C-alpha cells in the first residue's frame, strides 16, 4: 500500500521538498545495491543532511510503523540496501563530513557518508591511515563499512572494521540517539558497539563514527610469485604462518583469474602459471627485511617458477592493480558471473578448491578463483551465460559452494554479508535456536520490525522467493570501482 500523502508531508516538513524524492524516475536509482539481480523501487527516498534530521525521519517512520532502509553508496554485494516495498530509503550520502582528525589520539570522527578512502586521505598528512581497505574503497561509505563489518586485503594482519571502530552514534529504530562504545577500549558494560558492527543496517542508522588511525608502516615489501599448482601456493601460505610470520596480505589467484586480470590490466602477471601469490609484508625495517628473506626462501622451497619483487611504489601499485581488477576482469572471459564469499579454515584451502573444481565440472561451468589466502576467504567466481540458459545452474552452484564452506567448518560470508542474498542459507550454518536468539536481540533494538526488515535472518516470505542473477554494479561497469 502506498504511503499516504500526509506522511510524505511530514518528511517534507522535516527535510524540505527537495530532499524527499518520490518521482519514480529518481527513486529508481535506489532500486538495488551491488546485488543487482534483486530490485525494488522504494516508495520514498529521504536525503537528510544532518544527524538530527536522520533521527527526525526515523521518528516519523516509528510513529507510522514505516519500514526504512539505510543506504550508503549502494556497493553492498548481498542486497543489504535493497529497498523494502512500501518503505522508505534513507540515503546517508549527504552526511559526508570528516568532523575531526586527531593525530595525537590517532583517531578520526566521521559522518557516515564519508568514503573509506577519504578517511586515509584526511589522515595521511599526519603520517596516519585507516587500515580496513575494501576494494570498493573509492566509493563505499564508512557507514556501509560499519554495517557490513567490511574487510580488505590487509585485514589478515590488521583486522576488520570492527577492530578499528571505537564508538558509534546510532539512531535506534524508535528514533532515540545513543552512543555505543567509548573513547577507549573500556566500555560501560557489554560491547553493544560490537553487536552493531556487521548488523547490516538492521539495528539502527549510524550517524557518527570514531575510528582508530594507524601510523603508516616504515616499510612495505611486496612480491608476486608463480607456482606450479594452487596446492603448492597453499603450502607456501601454511609455511609462512608456521614460521610465525603475519604478512600484511596474502592473496592467491588461479589461472582463469590471472588470464582475466592480466588481459584487463597488463599488470605483469604470468599467463602460463596455474597459480600466483601476492605476499606483502610491512613494519619496521629490521623485521620486514628479515621476514621477507624468509618468505622468499619458503617460495623457492615450494617450486616457485617466477618471483617478482616490487622494486618501487609504482611496481607495487601495479601488482595490486592486477589483483584488484580480477573481479571485474572476469567479465572479459564470461558474459555473466556470480561472486561468492565463503570462508574455510585456511588449512583446508586445497581441499575446498578441488571440491569446487569438481562441482564446476559436474555443473558444466567454469569457476575462477581469487582469494584472501591468509584467512581462507574465498571469492569463487562462477562463470555462466544467461543467454544460454545457464543462470539457474550457476546460482545453484554458487549457493552450493557457500554451503560447502560451512560444511568444511567455515562461514557463509567473510565480508560481503548475508543481506537478502544468503539469508536462506543461514540455516546451513546456524541452528533454529541460534537464529531465534539473534532475532530476540534484534527485537531488543527494533521491537516493531521496521529497520531493514527481511534482511540477514531467513524469513518464509524471502526464502520462498527467487533472487535474480548477478549483473555488474553500474559503478563497476563505469570502471569507477573494482571487485576485490
Amino acid at each position, binding site marked *: 500500500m502506498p504511503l499516504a500523502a500526509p506522511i510524505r508531508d511530514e518528511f517534507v516538513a522535516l527535510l524540505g521538498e527537495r530532499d524527499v524524492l518520490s518521482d519514480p524516475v529518481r527513486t529508481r536509482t535506489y532500486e538495488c545495491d551491488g546485488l543487482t539481480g534483486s530490485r525494488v523501487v522504494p516508495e520514498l527516498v529521504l536525503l537528510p543532511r544532518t544527524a538530527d534530521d536522520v533521527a527526525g525521519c526515523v521518528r516519523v517512520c516509528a510513529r507510522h510503523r514505516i519500514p526504512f532502509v539505510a543506504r550508503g553508496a549502494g556497493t553492498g554485494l548481498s542486497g543489504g540496501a535493497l529497498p523494502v516495498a512500501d518503505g522508505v530509503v534513507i540515503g546517508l550520502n549527504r552526511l559526508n563530513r570528516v568532523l575531526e582528525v586527531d593525530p595525537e589520539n590517532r583517531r578520526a570522527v566521521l559522518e557516515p557518508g564519508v568514503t573509506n578512502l577519504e578517511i586515509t586521505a584526511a589522515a595521511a598528512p599526519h603520517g596516519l591511515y585507516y587500515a580496513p581497505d575494501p576494494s570498493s574503497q573509492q566509493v563505499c561509505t564508512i557507514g556501509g563499512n560499519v554495517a557490513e563489518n567490511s574487510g580488505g586485503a590487509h585485514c589478515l594482519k590488521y583486522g576488520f572494521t570492527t577492530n578499528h571502530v571505537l564508538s558509534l552514534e546510532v539512531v535506534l529504530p524508535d528514533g532515540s540517539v545513543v552512543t555505543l562504545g567509548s573513547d577507549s577500549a573500556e566500555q560501560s558494560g557489554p560491547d553493544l558497539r560490537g553487536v552493531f558492527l556487521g548488523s547490516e543496517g538492521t539495528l539502527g542508522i549510524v550517524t557518527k563514527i570514531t575510528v582508530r588511525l594507524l601510523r603508516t608502516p616504515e616499510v612495505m615489501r611486496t612480491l608476486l610469485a608463480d607456482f606450479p599448482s594452487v596446492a603448492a601456493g597453499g603450502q607456501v601460505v601454511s609455511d609462512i604462518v608456521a614460521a610465525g610470520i603475519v604478512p600484511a596480505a596474502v592473496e592467491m589467484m588461479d589461472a582463469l583469474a590471472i588470464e582475466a586480470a592480466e588481459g584487463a590490466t597488463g599488470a605483469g602477471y604470468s599467463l602460463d602459471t596455474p597459480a600466483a601469490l601476492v605476499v606483502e609484508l610491512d613494519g619496521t625495517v629490521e623485521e620486514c627485511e628479515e621476514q621477507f628473506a624468509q618468505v622468499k626462501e619458503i617460495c623457492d622451497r615450494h617450486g616457485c617458477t617466477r618471483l617478482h619483487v616490487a622494486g618501487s611504489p609504482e611496481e607495487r601499485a601495479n601488482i595490486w592493480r592486477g589483483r584488484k581488477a580480477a573481479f571485474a576482469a572476469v567479465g572479459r572471459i564470461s558474459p555473466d558471473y556470480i561472486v561468492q564469499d565463503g570462508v574455510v579454515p585456511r588449512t583446508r584451502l586445497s581441499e575446498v578448491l578441488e571440491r569446487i573444481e569438481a562441482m564446476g565440472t559436474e555443473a558444466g561451468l567454469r569457476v575462477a578463483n581469487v582469494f584472501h589466502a591468509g584467512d581462507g576467504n574465498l571469492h569463487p567466481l562462477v562463470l555462466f551465460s544467461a543467454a544460454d540458459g545457464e543462470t539457474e545452474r550457476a546460482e545453484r552452484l554458487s549457493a552450493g559452494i557457500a554451503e560447502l564452506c560451512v560444511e568444511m567448518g567455515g562461514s557463509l*560470508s567473510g565480508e560481503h554479508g548475508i543481506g537478502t542474498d544468503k539469508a536462506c542459507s543461514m540455516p546451513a550454518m546456524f541452528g533454529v535456536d541460534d537464529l531465534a536468539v539473534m532475532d530476540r536481540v534484534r527485537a531488543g533494538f527494533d521491537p516493531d520490525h521496521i529497520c531493514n526488515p527481511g534482511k540477514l535472518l531467513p524469513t518464509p516470505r524471502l526464502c520462498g522467493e527467487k533472487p535474480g542473477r548477478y549483473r555488474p554494479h553500474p559503478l563497476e561497469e563505469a570502471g569507477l570501482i573494482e571487485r576485490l
Partner: protein
Amino acid sequence: MTRAAPTTLRPTTPAEVRDAVLDVPGRLAISGAGTARHWAGRPDAVDATLDLSALSGVITHNPGDMTVSVHAGTPLADLQAELAGHGQRLALDAARAGRGATVGGLVATADAGPSALIYGGMRDLVIGTTSVLADGTMVRSGGHVIKNVAGYDMAKLLHGSYGTFGPLVEVVLRLHPVAKATACVAVDGPVDDAAERVLALMASPLEPIAVEWLSGDPGRLLVRLEGGTSTLPARVRRLVELLGDGAREVGPDAWDEHAALTTGEPGRAAGVGGAAGAAGRDAVVRIGCAPRSLAPLLGRLPATAVTAGLATGVATVTVHDASVTDVHDAVAAAGGTSVLRDRPADLDAPAWGAAPSALPLLTAIKNQLDPEARFAPGRFAPWM
C-alpha cells in the same frame, strides 16, 4: 522461591550447565575462578551459584589455522602453557591470568592487559561462543574461522556482560605466534613527562606492543617490543635513543610491578602524590578515556597507585575507598568510563560511573534474553 543456603553447582559439561539452568529455579550467580568476584556491582543474593571452574580444557586446537576452542572455565594460564608447545599464544596479557582467571571470566569482565595496544582485547580475539540462556537455550554464534560476518556477533554481547545474559560454556579464540624475542625498555619520570615521550614514541615507526606508566617515585614508563632474535637489538637501540635521557633496557620482571598495581597492592609502590595506600581500605577502579586525556586526568584523581596505558587510554587506579565516587565523577567529566574492581567486601560505593545513553537498549536486550532477570543480579546496579 528462596532457599536457606545458596547452593553451588559445578557442572562439568555444557549439557550439565544447561540442565543446571533449567533445573534450579530462581536467580543464579556465575563464577569462574572467582578472581573478579569483587569487580563491578556486588552480586545480589541468589538461589544458587554456577561455578564453571570444572568446565575446563581445550576442545580443539588447530595449530595450522591458529584457532582454538576451549571450555569457558579453562584457566588462561593453563591454555597458554598448552599453546606454547606449538609456538602459539592467546595475545592477551591481563595480569589477572596469573591468579588463575578463566577464559570465560576474562571475556565476561572484558579484561585486558597492556598488549591490547596492538592485539586488542577479548572483543578482538574471540571468534565464536556458545552460551546458555535463562530458558535453557544453547546459543552459538561466530565459528572457527577468523573472518566471518554471518549473523550478529553475539560474542560481543557477552564481552563485558558480567554474566548478565547467562554463562558462556565454550569460547573459540584466534591465536598469534609467540614472539621470537621480547624486550622491555624503561625510563623513569612523572606521568606528564612520560605522556610526552609516549607521544613521540607513537609518532615513530617502532611499533611498541605495550606502553605502560607505573606510579612511584618518580614513576616509570615501560615499553615492550617484540621481534626477531637477530633484529630486535637494533630496534631496542632505536627505542632507547628515542626515549632519551635515562632510558635503558630492563628485564621482563619489570612487568611484575604492573601486575601488582592492577590488584591494588600499592604497598610496593609509593603513591602518585607520595601517599602510601592504607592496606585493606583501598579500592581499585578501572578507567578509560582518550589516550591524551589520561595523564591530565590522573593528575586530578586522588590515586594512591596507578598503572596507566598512555597509548590506549586505559588505566587501573587505586584510591582510598571513600574516594570512589570522586573518581567516577572526574572520569565522567573527562568523557571517560569507569568501573570499580577489587575493594573491601563491605564497601558501599557505586560500582559504575554515569549510566550510558544506551542503558534503555541494554535493558531491552536483557528483557529479551533473561526476562525474569535470573542471571547475575546486581552486577550492573544501580543501572539495571
